[in-house]
Each structure stands twice: as C-alpha cells, then as structure tokens.
C-alpha cells in the first residue's frame, strides 16, 4: 500500500471505497501516479479495477475516500469537468460513436472547440482552427498506422482497429493523464504488442502519464511498464516494478495463478 511518488503526483487516490448496496466493490484503495509514468493496474476478475476507474473518471460517485487530479479535488466533479482537467479514459468495451466516420470520432474530443467565441465556432466563422484540428487528427491516425481507415464508419472497424481508434480519440483530447481499460483485450498478439509499443512511444515522447488496466499478468510484465499496481478483492496487494512483482511470485500465484494467466477472458 505504500507508494513512492516520483514528484508531484498527477493522480492521487486515497482510501477509495465504493459500495453497491451491500456489496463492497472497492474496499480501500490508495495509490499515486506521477508525471510521465506508465503504470499497469492488474488483478483478477471482479477485483474492483474497473470500478476504481469509474470512480476516478466521475462515472460513479465513491462511497468514501478522495481523488485528486493535478492537485485538484475531483471527488464531486462531472466526467466532462474531469476531462477538462486533462484526463481521458477509455472503456473496457470499446465504445466508438458508431455511425460517425473515424476522422469525425477523432474530431470530437479536442477541448478548445468553442474558443474564443462559441457562436463564431458554431457558425464556422473561422476555418483555420478547424483545419489545424483536422491535420492533427490525421497525424494521430498516422501515428497509430491506420490513416487508411479515416473515412470508414466506426461501425465498420474490426475489434483491434476500434481499440486503436479509441486510443487515438483519447489522444485528441490532449490528456496529461490517460486511463486505458484493457486496451488489448481480445486483440491478437502482434497487434497488442504494437499497441503497447505505441503507448510506450507516446509516453516517452510527450511525457504524459498512462494508467492501464490489464488482467493478463504475463503480458504486462513483458511490456516494460514503469510500475505495477496489483489489486485483489477491492484492495491494493502491492505496488512495485515489474521485477518486484515477478519476484513476489508466491503472492502472484496465490491471487492470480488460476485466473490471471488465462488470456482473453473478460472482466465483468
């Protein structure tokens, strides 16, 4: 439960608790994410990873505990306010806007769309800002190596492509902290590797922080994340580098041995 912050944390979760009626989904979770960190959050099915994510992103109200994002108390903020702090998340089941084209999907999140004057923006009095956004969206698609899909409807994409576009869409919101909920679930091995390499590259290039949920333990241990948070039954089991987690083998086996090493399963 003890955490070593590198510097001023971008995300600080303290004693988070979430109950659904009588069910305690998250008992007591505290951890921090420093700037430029690439962190994996792992744990067996139903251990409260996604619930923790939902509380952080404002989808759910926590029962107790506090959440600070960039030093601001985000406990009672709406999801859009939290996003405007510089935080973006994805959902476990990829949820693109299906009847819109890929490029349109990417053009929704940018945060400066109604500046400086909302009416000027709605009436399209200036096109230069829009062109910049468009150019950036194409750049992002190229970075993810799917520019040829730009004009397809999102509903026409395969599962893996959807995951890529989802990450791209999140990048368009200029996040300084990115939460990815199982970005490689159901994605074939090589593409999953590619997604992780892309993420690593983005983290190294832009200095944003990434928190990633993954329940395929072996996979994430091989992907060069900075630190790993291990959750079980609504609590933090340990926090450490991949090596530390690996050397803590008996703990891992005790909690993840049976459930965690089978890839492809969905947490729900």
């Amino acid at each position, binding site marked *: 439960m003890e955490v070593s912050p590198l510097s001023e944390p971008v995300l600080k979760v303290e004693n988070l608790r979430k109950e659904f009626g009588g069910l305690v989904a998250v008992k007591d979770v505290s951890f921090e994410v420093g700037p430029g960190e690439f962190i994996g959050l792992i744990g067996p099915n139903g251990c409260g990873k996604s619930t923790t994510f939902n509380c952080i*992103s*404002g*989808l759910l109200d926590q029962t107790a505990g506090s959440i600070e994002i960039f030093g601001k108390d985000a406990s009672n903020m*709406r*999801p*859009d306010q939290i*996003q*405007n702090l510089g935080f*973006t*998340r994805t*959902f476990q089941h990829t*949820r*693109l*806007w*299906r*009847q*819109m*084209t890929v*490029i*349109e*999907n990417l*053009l*929704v*999140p*940018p*945060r400066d*769309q*109604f500046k400086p004057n909302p009416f000027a*923006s*709605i*009436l*399209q009095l200036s096109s230069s800002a*829009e*062109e*910049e*956004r*468009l*150019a*950036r969206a*194409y*750049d992002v698609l*190229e*970075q993810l190596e799917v520019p040829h899909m*730009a*004009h397809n*409807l999102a509903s026409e994409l395969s599962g893996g492509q959807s995951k890529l576009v989802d990450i791209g*869409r*999140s990048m368009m*919101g200029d996040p300084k902290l990115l939460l990815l909920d199982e970005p490689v679930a159901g994605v074939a091995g090589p593409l999953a590797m590619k997604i992780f390499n892309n993420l690593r590259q983005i983290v190294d290039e832009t200095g944003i922080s990434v928190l990633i949920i993954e329940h395929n333990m072996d996979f994430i241990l091989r992907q060069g994340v900075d630190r790993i948070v291990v959750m079980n039954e609504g609590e933090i089991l340990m926090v450490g580098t991949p090596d530390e987690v690996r050397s803590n083998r008996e703990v891992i086996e005790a909690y993840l041995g049976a459930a965690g090493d089978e890839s492809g399963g969905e947490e729900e």
Partner: protein
Amino acid sequence: MFILILFLAWLPIAESDDFRFKKVLQVSNVLLTLSIFILMSFSLNLHTGYTGMVNFGVIFFVAIGTITVGILTAPENLHGYDWAILPAVLIALLLAAAFGWALAYPTARLRTDYFAIVTISLGEIVRVLLAGEPLLRVGAVGNAIGISSYPLPFEDMWFCGSETSGPDTNWVSPDACRDDPNLTDTPAYLIGEWLNLGEPAPYMFLLMIMSVVAVILVWILLNRILSSPWGRILKAIREDEEVAQHHGHDVLTHKAASLALGASIAALAGAFWAWKLTGFEPSFMSPARSTFLVWAAFIIGGTSNNRGMVVGAFIIVLMEFVFNVLVAGQGSTDLPLHTTAARIDSLFEWLILSPWEVASLFLVASFVGFAIRSERILETGLAGVAIFSFTAVALGQRSIDESFFGGVVTADMLYFKLFLIGCLMLFSLKFNTKGLLPEVPVRPERPNGGESVE
C-alpha cells in the same frame, strides 16, 4: 425531387373561369404547407436525428409559436395585446427556446423512450389547455373557442401598397383595398397582372414566398451549424452520450441548446401556421394532423439528413393534397379525380359488404404462397383471411346501417389517407430503414496546409 415538382404542377383543380387564380392559390397553399412541414421536420431532425432525443412533441413547440403570435398580435378590444408582428414573432421564438432549454433539465436522466412520452404528453397538455381555457379565446367575436382576427404580416402592404388601411382611412381593412379597383400600384395587383390572373394575387402567394425564404434561411443556418464542431458533438451525444461526456463535453448543456434551437425552428413553423390558418382552434394540433405526419416525413425522408426531410415532407404534403382533392371528388362528378374516388369507394364497399369473398381471395393467395413456398405471401394471405373472417363474423347488417348513413358505404378519405401513410411508413421501416436519403457520413480530407508527421 424533380418528379415531385412535376407532380405539383399536375395537381388537378376544377376547370372554371378563374382557373389561373385558383391554380396559383392551390400551388401557393401546397408550397406554404410544405414549408411549414419542412420547418417542423428540420426541428424534429435536429432533436431526434442529430441529438438522439426521441421527440414526439414537435407540435408542443409549434403550438407555442402559433399561440404566442396569435395572442400577442390580436387586437386589444378582442382580448389580444395588439403587438406588432415582428416583436411578437421574436418573443414566440425566444419563449419556445426557453421552454426547450428548460425541458432538458427535468428530462436529463430519462432514456429515449421516456423522453418521448414526456414530449408527447406536453403537446397534449397544451392542446387540452387551449380547448378549455377561456383566456385563450382571443380575437374571436362571440363565444367561439380559439384564436383569430390577428393581423397577417405585410397583408396591408400587399393589398394596399403605399396606402394604409384601418378604421380612419379610406379602406377599412386590407380586404377592402383588394376589392377597390382603383388601387393599381399595389404588389398584389402588379403580381396578379404579371401572372395574368385577372385580379390581385392572393395573400397566400406572399405568405408562401416568405415561408420559402424562411425555409432556405433555416436550411443554410442548420447546414452551417451541423457541420460545425457543435454538430459533431451532437452526433456523438446521439451515438453514446456517456462517452461524449467522458470526452469533455457537458452533455446536458448541449442537449438543452439543441432542444432550444429546434424549438425555435418549430415555433417559426408555428407562426407561419397561424398566418396560414388566419384563425385556429385546438384541433389544428391533433397528433394525427401534425406530429405523426412530421414523423412520417422524418422516417420516409431519411433520418439525419435535411435533404431527406424536404423530400419526406414533400411526399406527405402532396399526399395530403391529393386526398383533399379526392374528398372533393367524392361529392361531385364535375370535379377532378372523381373516377378515382369512385373506384376507391367501390373497393371499400366490396371490402365491407362481402368480407367472405375477400377472405376467400386471401385464402387462395395463401395456398399459392404455400405452393410456391413463399413464406411472405403465405403469411400475408393468412393474415388477410383472419382479418376478413373476423370482419364477416363481427359486422352485421345493423352495424353497417348504423355506421353509414342511408346504407351507402363510402370510404372516409381522411382515414384512407392515414392508412396509406401508415403503409408507407411500414414499407419504409421494413425495406428502407434509413429512409430515402440516409445520413451522409462526414469525410473531411486532410487539409493541404498540414504536413504529415512520420
């Protein structure tokens, strides 16, 4: 689209001396009604097609426009407020927008179907209120219910030209100007002459021009708005509002703004409707004559496509007019379409009076369907057998005598029209789910200025 316009020219009317005048009147009337329906479909399309809020209460916002304009501009001695027309229209648009904006908050957490129920009840509430509220008997002389006697925009200028009408002038009302043969410098007279009508052009013509201009303006405005970042966000809300919220957009505010804008457009349609009717009572907003027709246009034309709205509204309005002509044709042999009406009547009479015959025909059809193994024909046949056997058993001679005066069976064209529109919607939903003109995906190219970063 072109076919539809040709169809409009074909629309028959009775031959008479003032044929040209009547034709102009008829075409103006069709185009005016069409414009009103297009505006209403635009509003519905913004709410339902783009923002994903299933709105069955188009007529609610339309009625706000109609009633507000009517009450505010009706003369004071008839319980109105005697406002000028322009401020009354502005207030009506703002009021509708305010209602639309406010509607977003109590319904924020309602799923689509519940939102639909709320809106449909809003429309009904206004209709019932209007029927029962004596304060709304504005402009009416005597005890009539409803709102009338309000001035029409530019009517004075249209018929009187540079002169003005009124109790203290040479002409009591615009109508007096129209009937005065000495006034020859008025727009109505000049256009009447230009079109070779033999009399001043009808006011409907001016109103039609204004409504068409309004449609074009709203069209341009909506095109601009919907291709802007805001239009994109609305579509994202339609697709998945939770995700839209997580990508930093305050869904509630955007929905409220969309409702407000659509409500204003509907209220504008309402104002034109008020002027077209020159006086209205609550029945004008019965769902079968308004909301459902707009929905039919929306479904047939193609959701999320304003061009589709125009086509859909065109089909519905033309259907309406053909049936008006049919209704007239039923009564007299001189009028156009009399034979068509007579044929529909005899078909209907056959359906009612000899249901066993019809049922046995359907039975044959189902045998054919069975023989050629076409499930669709078999099902249709069996359904027909069931319906008409039931009719045969349930309908006695007495019920026929009581329902049809004098035992003469005639089809009521109003229901026949609704029946046809219903069929059209069913076909559209079954075979062409996206409508005639479906949504066009937005595919912007990479702008030239941006260099790719590899």
